[in-house]
């Protein structure tokens, strides 16, 4: 079906000219299941601010090294996968965690040398099922 800028299809075949040059096919299930549903680059120092993001409605400062991100478009459940971290602007012993909180919220924690710290680059990636 081709109408109004929409193409419905099940398999995408490409020459993969950018990476390997070898023709490959991809079931479109991998496209909508595989694309990230949200990502974030947050400045978590001082008055926190979003440096750049996708599918992010707002961010909240929950205290030193503790942040929350609200999704613009919700996930279908809270069983999605997250990843992220933070930069080493105070110590290389930097331990960042990103966890699902609800269908619309992700929490992020930044630690260095075992203590909570504010970091100038806090990152979060979200994959899973959109509602």
């Amino acid at each position, binding site marked *: 079906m081709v109408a109004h800028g929409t193409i419905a299809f099940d398999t995408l*075949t490409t020459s993969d000219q950018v990476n390997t040059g070898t023709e490959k096919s991809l079931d479109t299930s991998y496209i909508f299941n595989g694309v990230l549903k949200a990502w974030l680059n947050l400045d978590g120092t001082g008055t926190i601010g979003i440096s750049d993001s996708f*599918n992010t409605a707002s961010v909240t400062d929950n205290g030193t090294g503790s942040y929350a991100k609200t999704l613009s478009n919700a996930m279908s459940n809270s069983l999605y996968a997250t990843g992220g*971290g933070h930069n*080493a*602007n105070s110590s290389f012993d930097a331990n960042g965690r990103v966890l699902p909180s609800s269908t619309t919220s992700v929490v992020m924690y930044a630690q260095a040398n075992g203590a909570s710290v504010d970091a100038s680059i806090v990152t979060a990636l979200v994959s899973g099922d959109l509602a």
Partner: protein
Amino acid sequence: MSTLLLNTLTGKTSAGSIVVTGEGGSTTTNLQQGLIKQWVNLTSATPAYKDSFNASSVTDEDLGKYEYPFTNPMGNANYSAVGCGSTKGSNNSYSAIVTTGDTADTYGLHSTASIRFNAYAYNGSAFTDCDTMNSMVSGDLA
């Protein structure tokens, strides 16, 4: 079942924006924004990529510090990244923490041209090589 054979996907209204219907069948998401722009599986002692995408030759900055140039650069330095590392052998008990660099380049680069990842042994309080060091970058391509 239908198959579409092509080399390039380009948005009709906006070249860099294609909408994909989500798993729920109604909410849409943006294909370009959701794609991983670089991924790397590195063995860091050499160092060498085991496999990678959109990463040109790795630079060995120092023990536990590696810079991955983008083959195709990012549009800005405000992209999102994640990494993790694992060690074995003499460092079997270590869990490697992988951090990214920063825009000021104080602790490594986080720029449109490349990103640096630092591997730090959690239990050893020292930089470390990793048998496997994985990373992914999302954000805006130039």
